[in-house]
């Protein structure tokens, strides 16, 4: 496997079906060492299931994956030693202090006492929790718990750190802080990071490459810039009361068009100059437009283009999806 050795993560046709729902459907991708890779998609797209298979917590139905050179089915223990995992739901012992949680983790990974001591100081420093080291975790805020979990994920020097929705349910300020830690760990320590998210600004701003997931499949995979370049120009979204949106295809300057609900998104250059033309065209064809919106392309538009739905539509429409875990609530 010398030729593939540069890939720290290698996923081939990974598939998992729960009852009748195919949660992950022949997913394949590779990640190189040191990359910050993101899986973007709505809830229920199969991101967490993919991650659970990559971290050996769930057996795939078919397909294969290797992490840090080890097969996730045949060499579970070797994979486990090489990775760190930050779960979507809290996974801390709240009756222990921050230090004790980290010490527990270090021992489970067979770290020596001196090494544990210095590493605990290091990782707590990184997430700025040094002053709360010896407080019980139940006294931590949601954001602090998340930071502690990130510190714990790094504690044993993993080759790959998996983060499942690392900023789910956190406020904007805490979220920005977490992004900063993730970026720093990736840059300074060259830790390969795989994260899942359904926040497109998170995937866009943080990840070097992004795989867009929908209904268990990866529909597009590239750098955020390249993905957005696929859209090319600006996106004008018209909300229509009536009329046939297909007629917009007749306009030469409309590069692409996606209908979703009573809206239509049009990819055009210099969008602000095209709006009057679009309105005029609508009037001529008896289309009643109730609102107009213009924006630069985002990953949301990429998702829309590849799936024909917005991420919000998907989350609202798929009622059979596995339920969302409660956000960072305090449960007792």
């Amino acid at each position, binding site marked *: 496997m010398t030729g593939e050795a540069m890939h720290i993560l290698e996923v081939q046709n990974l598939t998992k079906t729960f009852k009748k729902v195919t949660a992950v459907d022949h997913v394949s991708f590779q990640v190189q060492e040191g990359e910050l890779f993101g899986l973007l998609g709505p809830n229920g797209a199969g991101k967490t299931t993919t991650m659970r298979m990559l971290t050996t917590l769930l057996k795939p139905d078919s397909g294969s994956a290797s992490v840090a050179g080890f097969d996730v089915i045949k060499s579970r223990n070797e994979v486990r030693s090489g990775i760190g995992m930050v779960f979507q739901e809290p996974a801390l012992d709240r009756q222990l202090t921050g230090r*004790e949680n980290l010490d527990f983790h270090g021992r489970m990974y067979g770290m020596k006492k001196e090494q544990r001591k210095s590493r605990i100081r290091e990782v707590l420093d990184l997430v700025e929790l040094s002053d709360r080291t010896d407080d019980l975790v139940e006294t931590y805020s949601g954001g602090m718990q998340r930071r502690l979990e990130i510190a*714990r994920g790094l504690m044993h020097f993993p080759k790959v750190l998996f983060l499942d929705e690392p900023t789910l349910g956190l406020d904007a300020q805490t979220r920005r802080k977490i992004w900063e830690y993730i970026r720093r760990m990736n840059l300074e320590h060259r830790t390969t990071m795989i994260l899942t998210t359904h926040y497109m600004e998170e995937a866009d701003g943080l990840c070097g490459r992004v795989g867009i997931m929908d209904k268990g499949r990866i529909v597009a995979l590239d750098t955020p810039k390249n993905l957005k370049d696929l859209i090319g120009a600006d996106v004008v979204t018209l909300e229509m009361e009536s009329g046939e949106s297909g007629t917009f295809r007749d306009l030469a300057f409309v590069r692409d068009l996606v209908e979703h609900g009573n809206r239509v998104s049009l990819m055009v250059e210099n969008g602000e100059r095209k709006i009057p033309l679009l309105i005029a065209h609508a009037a001529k064809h008896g289309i009643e437009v109730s609102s107009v919106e213009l924006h630069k392309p985002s990953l949301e538009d990429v998702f829309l283009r590849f799936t024909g739905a917005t991420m919000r539509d998907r989350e609202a429409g798929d009622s059979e999806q*596995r339920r969302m875990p409660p956000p960072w609530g305090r449960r007792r």
Partner: protein
Amino acid sequence: MISISGQAVYMLWLREMKRTWRAKSRMIGALIMPLFFLVFMGSGFRRATLPGMPEGVDYITFLIPGAIGMSLLFSSMFGGLQVLWDKEFGFLKEIMVTPVSRLSIVLGRMAGGSTISLLQGILILLLSTFFGFRIHSLTGLLVAFAFMLLIAFTFIGLGLSFASRMKDMHGFQLVMNFVVFPIFFLSGALYPVQGLPAVLKPLVYLDPLTYGVDGLRAGLLGSSAHPPLLDFTVLAAICAGMVTLGSVFFETSDVGQ
């Protein structure tokens, strides 16, 4: 190759100790029920002599090994079912994603749970000296400790089996009502099982705690319904079975979805 990591077993044990120490009130609360039985039933039935009770032993003395068995039964089942709490609070996933073998995790839990149970049993034994209980031989005491250990491991194994097959904590009360209480009442902890109707006899002899309580009586009172060696052999066999069952169920359980 199954490997056991001593450090992980120790860590899991240490965690259990720390958590228990921080919830001291719960541990003391767990002692209350066996003590109530001792105080109220013991004094209420003070003058009672039931067929099957050893000669020259009053009811409260007869009851003391039963109360110890009871405290061990409840705390050990609870110890095994602790997995449900870890599931509920997500910590089980943190344990499961580590490179530690499942066997080490089971052993760590057994070590932690049995320590707590044993401590409770010893506390009841100490408190029972206030009711006039006297230890008459060191050998007897050691025999009693051996039975305490066996009872603890048996029911941690059973608790672990249930916890591994349950999705969440909803079934906890059911297990308590339909498994733990029958085990307790059928064991002869409160009365000599000779008095029970014949239809219940098979259940009595299926109940692991029957042998445990009888063994404790052998050690602490010096007299028992069955030869202590028989009690020990049967209970040890059940214990080995339960521990194996608990480990297998735990190892094959899926950690939530």
